[in-house]
């Protein structure tokens, strides 16, 4: 009996550790800011993300230099003056969610993700509502939220303050494949 329990426990812990992990290396994050003076659009296609459905964990890591702006000068200013990508090359997020995503069942599931977002050397606790959509072996996570640059010690110079929204809109779309 004891042996049986032991074996099942080992099996359980193994599946626990190598659970349902979904990953991508080319997720998509868009950012936008709209003021009457200027529209700013940028897209990053090099987002790395992993979702662990068993442990209800989620992690992101993205190189900030991969943001492509519609105007090259904005891209230069973003990297050099705002996020300082030479000094802080990546932004990361590590968090968890409370909702259970049923096994092997296609469908759309709203989730609330809580965790730590690191940008420009500053780490903050954030709560982001999002949606998981499972279709076969593909799990797509989407989220829309706003981020205030000053929370991350990104100072917008007075002279361009009217051209940049107080809060930047972030649009996340990650299509993760189940890790074998």
């Amino acid at each position, binding site marked *: 009996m*004891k*042996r049986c*329990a*032991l074996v099942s*426990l*080992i099996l*359980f*812990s193994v599946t*626990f*550790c190598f659970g349902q*992990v979904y*990953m991508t*290396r080319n997720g998509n994050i868009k950012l936008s800011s709209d003021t009457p003076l200027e529209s700013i*659009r940028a*897209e990053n296609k*090099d987002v*790395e*993300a*992993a979702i*662990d459905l068993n*442990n209800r*964990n*989620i*992690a*992101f*890591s993205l*190189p900030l*230099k991969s943001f*492509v*702006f*519609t*105007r*090259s*000068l904005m891209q*230069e200013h973003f*990297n*050099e*003056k705002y996020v*300082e990508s*030479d*000094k802080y090359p990546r932004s*990361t997020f*590590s*968090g*968890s969610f409370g909702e259970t995503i049923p096994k092997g069942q296609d469908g759309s599931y709203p989730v609330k993700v809580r*965790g730590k977002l690191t940008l420009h050397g500053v780490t903050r606790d954030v709560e982001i509502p999002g949606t998981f959509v499972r279709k076969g072996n593909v799990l797509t996570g989407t989220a829309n939220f706003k981020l205030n640059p000053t929370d991350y010690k990104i100072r917008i*110079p007075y*002279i*361009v303050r009217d*051209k940049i929204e107080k809060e930047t809109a972030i649009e996340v779309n990650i299509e993760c494949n189940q890790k074998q």
Partner: protein
Amino acid sequence: MVRLVFTLILFCSVLAGQAQDSSLLSMLDDSSAPGKKILVTQTFKAKRIVNTQTVEAPAKGDLNFIIMHRFGEINDGSYEFFGLDNATMRIGLDYGLTEKLAIGIGRSSLEKTFDGYLKYKLLRQSTGAGAMPVSVSLVGSITNYTLKFDNKPYLNAKYRTSYMVQALVARKITTALSLQVAPTWQHFNLVPTARDKNEVFSTSIGGRLKFTKSMSITAEYNILFPDQVSSIDVKNSLSMGIDIETGGHVFQLVFTNSQGMTESQFIPRTTGSWGKGDIYFGFNISRNFTLGKKGK
């Protein structure tokens, strides 16, 4: 014994579950594409250090409008208001044809000179896989001055034309410090006397040091190799300035011993001496316009 193993495994699995939060992130970091090649950008703020071009060129579809302005010599004295009564200038347009190739045209008031050039970004400094230590841009330019001389009717367009080929080699050493070396070859179709050489070789060294996110100090020194220009008392061109960037503009406040602003003028024709106070105060203003749009 069995109980001990049992407890241990239970402990481990709980630990694994708790550690997952950050280990998922470290798993991502571990599996990150190893050293993806990343281009080093913004080696210089402006397309010119002061007079010499930098490795930077307008991005594809970007139009850069530049006004270079030099007052008279500071040692002209109070009658000339220390040079501020006089001015020479150059208006220029630079345009990015592709990400690597740019074209530029300019007009200087000094000797009513036209200049045009092509600039090609041969190598880009990068980090990661296949890292490149330096950026290299090649410039080919042609200059033609149109000032009328009534006593020199033989001075036709050919004689007024000169050419230049310059290899700009720059490295962004730190976020703040960039240095550039530029070996230069020039050919003048006509030189003032037989003692002067038609082929003129020189090297430009320069750099910029950023001291805030938007401001930097720049300096350049053009070494003209000896015994090439003999008919005038030529000096090496030394210039320094402060760059201030505001949005799409770059303002450069400069001090230089050269009045001319094209290579055909400031490299072999600088006669001002810093020691004697033959210093021209001036500024460059450049404005970037995005004509073509990338992406959506």
